[in-house]
């Protein structure tokens, strides 16, 4: 069904090892000089970024900094105007969500992208339904969805056959995350996973993020809540007006410096 990603096989002799990633951690995804504009709006300007496995990278930036656009470029929804994307060192062209999924990249969008009229199982398998002789294999999908939710310690939903419309914000987020990690994914991008969540539900989602990392997945988290970010992040990158202005281990940053980078694009520390 899915066409192989062109360029995936070609080796890239020039791919430089990531500078800011601690040795030992495998770099899953690298952006090199990515530009993206919409008409006159330059949303991304020459962005470099490394996303290693088994680490949580936080992407910070003020409203309109380009975080969501960057996510959508990785997910194949937008095509970068210039620059390249490397997957495990090899240049790839991600032409759509299927290409991204093929590589092992899954995205949880800011608006979650769940269909309210479908139930939890139907949403988790949307676009990848299991079929048996042409008919949907509901039993097998339901069992797999239940297993995934259990593995992620999501226990608050009453029935996995209830429509997503009937879930609370945190439960919806959990379903969206579970949907993303069901597929043997290697890199998960979370856009604002804790926005609009209460204290308990936020904690639940952050625990979920740690669980993913402990399973060896690469995670990129976008959040405006810097307290949350600093709690879970191993690495931090900051965007300011479409430019990446800082990137490094979380220990190099504190709340003050991240805020300075986000608002002014530089820090005096």
């Amino acid at each position: 069904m899915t066409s192989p990603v062109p360029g995936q096989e070609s080796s890239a002799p020039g791919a430089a090892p990531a500078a800011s990633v601690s040795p030992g951690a495998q770099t899953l995804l690298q952006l090199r000089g990515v530009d993206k504009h919409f008409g006159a709006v330059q949303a991304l300007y020459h962005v470099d970024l490394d996303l290693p496995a088994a680490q949580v990278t936080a992407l910070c930036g003020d409203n309109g900094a380009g975080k969501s656009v960057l996510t959508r470029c990785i997910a194949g929804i937008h095509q970068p105007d210039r620059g390249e994307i490397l997957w495990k060192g090899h240049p790839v062209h991600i032409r759509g969500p299927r290409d991204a999924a093929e590589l092992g990249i899954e995205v949880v969008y800011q608006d979650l992208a769940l269909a309210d009229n479908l139930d939890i199982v139907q949403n988790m398998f949307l676009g990848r339904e299991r079929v048996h002789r042409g008919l949907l294999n509901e039993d097998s999908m339901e069992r797999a969805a239940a297993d995934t939710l259990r593995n992620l310690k999501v226990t608050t939903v009453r029935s996995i056959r209830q429509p997503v419309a009937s879930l609370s914000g945190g439960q919806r987020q959990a379903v969206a995350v579970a949907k993303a990690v069901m597929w043997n994914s290697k890199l998960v991008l979370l856009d604002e996973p804790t926005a609009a969540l209460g204290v308990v539900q936020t904690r639940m989602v952050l625990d979920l993020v740690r669980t993913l990392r402990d399973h060896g997945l690469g995670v990129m988290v976008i959040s405006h809540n810097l307290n949350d970010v600093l709690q879970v992040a191993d690495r931090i990158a900051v965007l300011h007006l479409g430019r990446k202005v800082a990137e490094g281990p979380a220990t190099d940053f504190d709340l003050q410096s991240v805020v300075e980078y986000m608002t002014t694009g530089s820090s005096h520390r």
Partner: protein
Amino acid sequence: MAQVEDEVGRTALDEEAEPSAAAEIAAPPEILAESLGQYLRAWGRRVAGGESGALPVVLALVIIAVAFEIWTQGLFLSPQNLVNLFIQSMFFMTLGMAEIFVLLLGEIDLSAGYVLAVAAGIAGLLVQKPGPDWPWWLAIITALVCSGVTGAIWGLLVSRLHLPSFVVTLAGLLIMWGVMLVILGNAGVVSISSRILVNQHVLYQIVNGNIPPAAGWVVLAVLSLLFAGLTISRDFGRRRKGLVAPPSGLTVLKIAFFVAAGIAVVAVCNVNRGSSLVVLAGVPWVVPIVLVVLLLWVVLLQRTRFGRYVYAIGGNPDAARRAGIRLATVRTWAFALAGVTAGFSGILYLSWQGGTSTNVNGGQYVLYGVAAAVIGGTSLFGGRGKIAQAVLGGLVIGAIYNGLYLQGVQVQWQLIATGLVLVGAVLVDTLSRRGTLSGSATRI
């Protein structure tokens, strides 16, 4: 510090209790209930909360039946008229099914009425002798294929060029009206009521022929066993595997309802509605034929990827796109299937009337089809509805159409009555949607 956190945690938990109460209303009772009693209570809460399902339609049907029965002094519920009513309703049901394919996407097909008329014309013309004299089945297939292609064209315009379906299919209405006039030519009529020509006779018998009464019972018994077997093996199988399953009392209730409805239909149809000399009894062939089509479409929409994608696109097109679903392809197919189904109701029309003419009022029929779907409970806003809902909706439209006709009410009042029913149905749809929306807003 830990204490403070605990306190915060508790209040947040308390807040969480509220959405789950709302969730109980929004979630279908059969997946949360463990017993029939629980189910009925959950169902009662849903009805009270504005999510009433099929109940208002059934109530409306009962009220309509009682009112017409009194008004027509016993004519309405006579076996002879009830069979007429079934036949007319079959026609509106299939039109409703056609509309549901596109309504689920949040689109509409206004051309269905004249697609129907053209299909009737094509099938009728192809079995003329002298003339093409095609076999009846080839005439039917040709008419259905033409209808499907027509629907696919609207679908392509809507999905690839992003034209609004309202405008595309309004243009389609005019075009197909014209096509109908062209193919029926100067004579403007085509008849299939010959009893000697086999191909015409078979078409005529679809609606006007009856299953022998004894055979009717056998068919019902077989269908009931099939339905019971499938339902039980599915529900109890899921229960055994520890998956979400409706309470067993509900399974039994469903089967009992199916059997009771079947017995009622067969019993009514098997009453002699001819005279003591010429016996006329039995279930019209059109009833099982429409049931088969219904079953096909239910399987397609509920049990295949295509069906799942139709619902997903209707519910949240962005989610569908990001899931890698090819929206344009699914939309085009849905329009094509709506066309095929409209063509199918054209075949029923041709058979029912024993022919067709340029007088087919496609503009009115398509609104009956939309009304049947919406009255049945399909949302105009996409994503919510089931193909089987066309059955109840079609019965309501059929009953109004039949009752007013029986009473000799003039056509202007028939139009007004149907229009009012349609407005009422849309009102219910909009209000219930607003109810669920405000409900989910508090949940997020």
